[in-house]
């Protein structure tokens, strides 16, 4: 668990996943190959039902019955582990615990250091003043920040974010995107974000992985070589957005362009 061993590179090879639905089966993911460097921020976009959440859950170790390999650093993933943190779409804070107890919930040993670690994490997400609050007293954005603190307290090599801001309002979402970027710059954890928001994917990712639907396959990987913080209305940003957009809606877009 030392710093030297912190190898947060992720390699996915020939990943297949089928679901049994009734008598038949549905191929959720087909031939997924991905290599993610340590410290990289990867966004995965896809329409709903494309298997992007399933991919994330496989990496988290929550799914089984797939073929292919997932390796984090030099270890093969075969189940959940503290080397991977996970942020779900809902905050999943335990309503009967306070904010600090929720963050400490991720710590399984009981050491005198716990208190300090929790305080540090709450500082990192800017919620030191809410340590004693209960989840129902927090706004959606605040609750999600507590969830981030909880996921990071074990210093995972890889943080998996499953549409983490999808349930938030547009303004809070932008704030949280800036927040996660700031945290990433401090912690340098490898990040893997699943989203259906193209803007969010470009704003955050070093690369944007486009997943096609049914079966989910990697359609394209678009590098985003723009300095951060990124300006969503800059020419380059808009170009990339257009590029990704046409991957999803290429047929529908064309007649519109001719009309102009």
């Amino acid at each position, binding site marked *: 668990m030392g710093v030297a061993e912190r190898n947060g590179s992720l390699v996915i090879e020939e990943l297949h996943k089928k679901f049994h639905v009734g008598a038949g089966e549905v191929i959720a993911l087909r031939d997924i190959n991905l290599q993610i460097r340590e410290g990289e921020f990867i966004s995965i976009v896809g329409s709903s039902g494309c298997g992007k959440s399933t991919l994330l859950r496989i990496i*988290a*170790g*929550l799914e089984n019955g797939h073929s292919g390999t997932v390796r984090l650093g030099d270890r093969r993933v075969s189940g*959940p*582990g*503290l080397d*991977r*943190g*996970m942020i*779900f779409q*809902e905050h*999943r804070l*335990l*309503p*009967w*615990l306070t904010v600090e107890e929720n963050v400490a*919930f*991720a710590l*399984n040993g009981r050491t005198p250091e716990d208190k300090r670690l929790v305080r540090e994490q709450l500082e990192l997400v800017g919620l030191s003043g809410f340590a004693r609050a*209960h*989840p*129902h007293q927090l706004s959606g954005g605040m609750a999600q920040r507590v969830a981030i603190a*909880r996921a990071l307290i*074990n210093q995972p090599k890889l943080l998996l974010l499953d549409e983490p801001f999808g349930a938030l309002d547009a303004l809070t979402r932008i704030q949280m995107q800036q927040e996660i970027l700031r945290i990433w710059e401090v912690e340098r954890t490898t990040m893997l974000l699943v989203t259906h928001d193209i803007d969010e994917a470009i704003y955050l990712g070093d690369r944007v992985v486009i997943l096609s639907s049914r079966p989910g396959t990697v359609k394209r990987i678009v590098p985003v070589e723009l300095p951060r913080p990124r300006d969503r209305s800059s020419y380059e940003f808009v170009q990339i957005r257009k590029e990704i957009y046409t991957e999803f809606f290429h047929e529908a877009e064309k007649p519109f362009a001719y009309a102009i």
Partner: protein
Amino acid sequence: MTSDTKPHLERIKHLLQYLGLSAAVLVVWQGLYHLGYIKPLILPPPTQVAAAFQDLVKSGAMTRHVGISVARVLEGFAIAALLGLSLGIAIGLSRTLDRLTDLAIQVIKPIPPIAWIPLAILWFGIGEKSKVYIIFLGAFFPIIINTIDGIRQTDHKFVELSRVLEVPRVKFVRRVVIPGALPAIMTGLRVGLMVAWMCVVAAELIAAGSGIGYLIMDARQLSQSDVVLVGMITIGVIGKVMDSIIRRIEKRLVDWKPSFAGH
């Protein structure tokens, strides 16, 4: 100023709403007696019941009967809570244990405690033990069944979260399962206490020489319908007080759960 007086008026209004129905029943009851519609032998008026109550309090009999009944109920309830909670948690956590016990629980549950009296006397004699056993039976099933239900309703999202965080099993049960089941467990305890208290009369059918149930049965034989009513109303009032106490404890334990209070 208005912010001060208005809640005050509001509170009086709420108190009147709270007491209104009961007061109306008493007034009508008393009124019907005065108008000659009901005979005191069949239904004595509230004033007569109050007088009988006063006599019983003065002679010290009331405190004795109430004290003994409450003690019996608390004893039976305590045993039921202890066994119901621990077995309920164990069964809730284990599918195998559930399969092993489910049929027996479901079959024994509908048997009314009063039907157990003959066996209870054979097993425990006519002393305190058989009475406590009857009360225990009444309280046990609501507690164990609500506990099992509460544990089974553990949110799958928290189960997943605990897997991701590699939470050890004991901690998972202590920090996730039991707190999540607590609202259901408290409901079970509340219903259990209520049923236990309702069983007190049945339990005191067994050769009792004291207790509220005895008071009622004894008065019935002497045709003292006013004393019967004193006993009935006392059971009602004490039941209400017990329920209020346990509700207050529940509110404190489950303070994280904002609930719907009605319009």
